[in-house]
């Protein structure tokens, strides 16, 4: 089992998340794409920890998960606040803020 395959899988998942972030306009799906990219990075960290035989990569992935959870809480509450004011979750509507 070569570790390169894990890196290639992580690259594919990261790219899918990035493309989703670029082509979708729903703020919720943009957030899910971000989660996809964070998970791809976590996969790289865990596989690097396995390749090198030390646990530091796993600890880093654990911290990434904690930060992602906090980020989701804040982001979703911002989405709910914007939805209350504008009745929409499309990120294109925020371009009206520039006047």
């Amino acid at each position, binding site marked *: 089992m070569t570790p390169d395959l894990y*890196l290639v*899988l992580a690259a*594919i998942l990261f*790219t899918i998340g990035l493309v989703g972030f670029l082509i979708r306009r*729903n703020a*919720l799906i943009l957030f899910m*794409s971000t989660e996809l990219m964070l998970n791809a990075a976590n996969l790289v960290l865990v596989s690097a920890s396995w390749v*090198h035989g030390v646990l530091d990569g796993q600890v880093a992935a654990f911290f990434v*998960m904690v930060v992602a959870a906090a980020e989701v809480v804040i982001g979703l509450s911002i989405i709910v606040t914007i939805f209350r004011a504008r009745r*929409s979750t499309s990120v294109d509507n925020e371009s009206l803020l520039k006047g």
Partner: protein
Amino acid sequence: MTGLLLLVSTGQTVAFWICAVLAVIAAVGVIASSRPIYSALCLAVVMVSLAALYASLQAEFLFAVQIIVYTGAVLMLFLFVIMMVGVTTHETLVETLRGHRVPALVAGGCLVVLLALATGNVVTSDPAGLDTVQEEGYIQALAQLIFQRYVIPFEATAALLITAAVAAMVLAHPKRLAPKPDQTTRLRERLAAYAATGAHPGPAPASGVTARHNSMATPALLPDGTVAEASVTPTLVSRVGLRTPEELTGPMQSAVKALEGGPSVILSTPSASPSAPSVILSEAKDLSADQDDSAPTTAVETPEPEPDLDAGYTPPPDPDAEKGGAK
């Protein structure tokens, strides 16, 4: 020993290919499905596949954390918010920036080729594995790392989580954009709507209870046999649609037919058979039609009901108005 190593390696390979294919398919589903709820469910599949990959990479702690934190907490949060804001919103799949989708896909393809070529040559040595760490005590080693070497970042994440919780509470409890409507304003709005469009000023009809259905999604039937659309919430209508009267009374009518062994007279629609019971039904229909028509016609032709109702209803004294009058 080599046989055991081969077995472990084979198991890992099988796990990798199953989970990798699942994860990539579900990840494409996340960004390609038109409704956010399907995206969230696809994301759950990605998370669980990644958790299985972590387990095959000897990261049992992260396997559990991935399932508990991501599939348990984060995705439930996503589902809560989707249920609050996203169920009835359909994203228009028309691209607002014209022609930005193709360049985005091309850029994504270039990026995946670049990353795959770059990472394909990074790891040259065989993986060391975590067997020695596992033998010394995996959880103990992890705890030593988190609580000794990385204790400062660990405390920082604690502060981050507290801040996030407080910020979420502050954001979820904003100032009202408009004053809270009290009973008087609601009543005035209803009567104004009645005067303008003839909308019924009373409460909306309750959902229907028939012989076979008593759910909230069952519409009430008007006396003429049609469906009262106001008796079902718009959210349910947008998700499951309105049931038709034939759908509601069909099984009962067929049962009655089977019992009587002939065409049913009592429960047929008024226009079906001109027998005595249906005359009663059609009278009921006329009555209901009169009742239904009375509100709009009086509102349109003679505007008396609205001032009458206002005269009959004396609003409670408005303290602000009294102050203004005193000044």
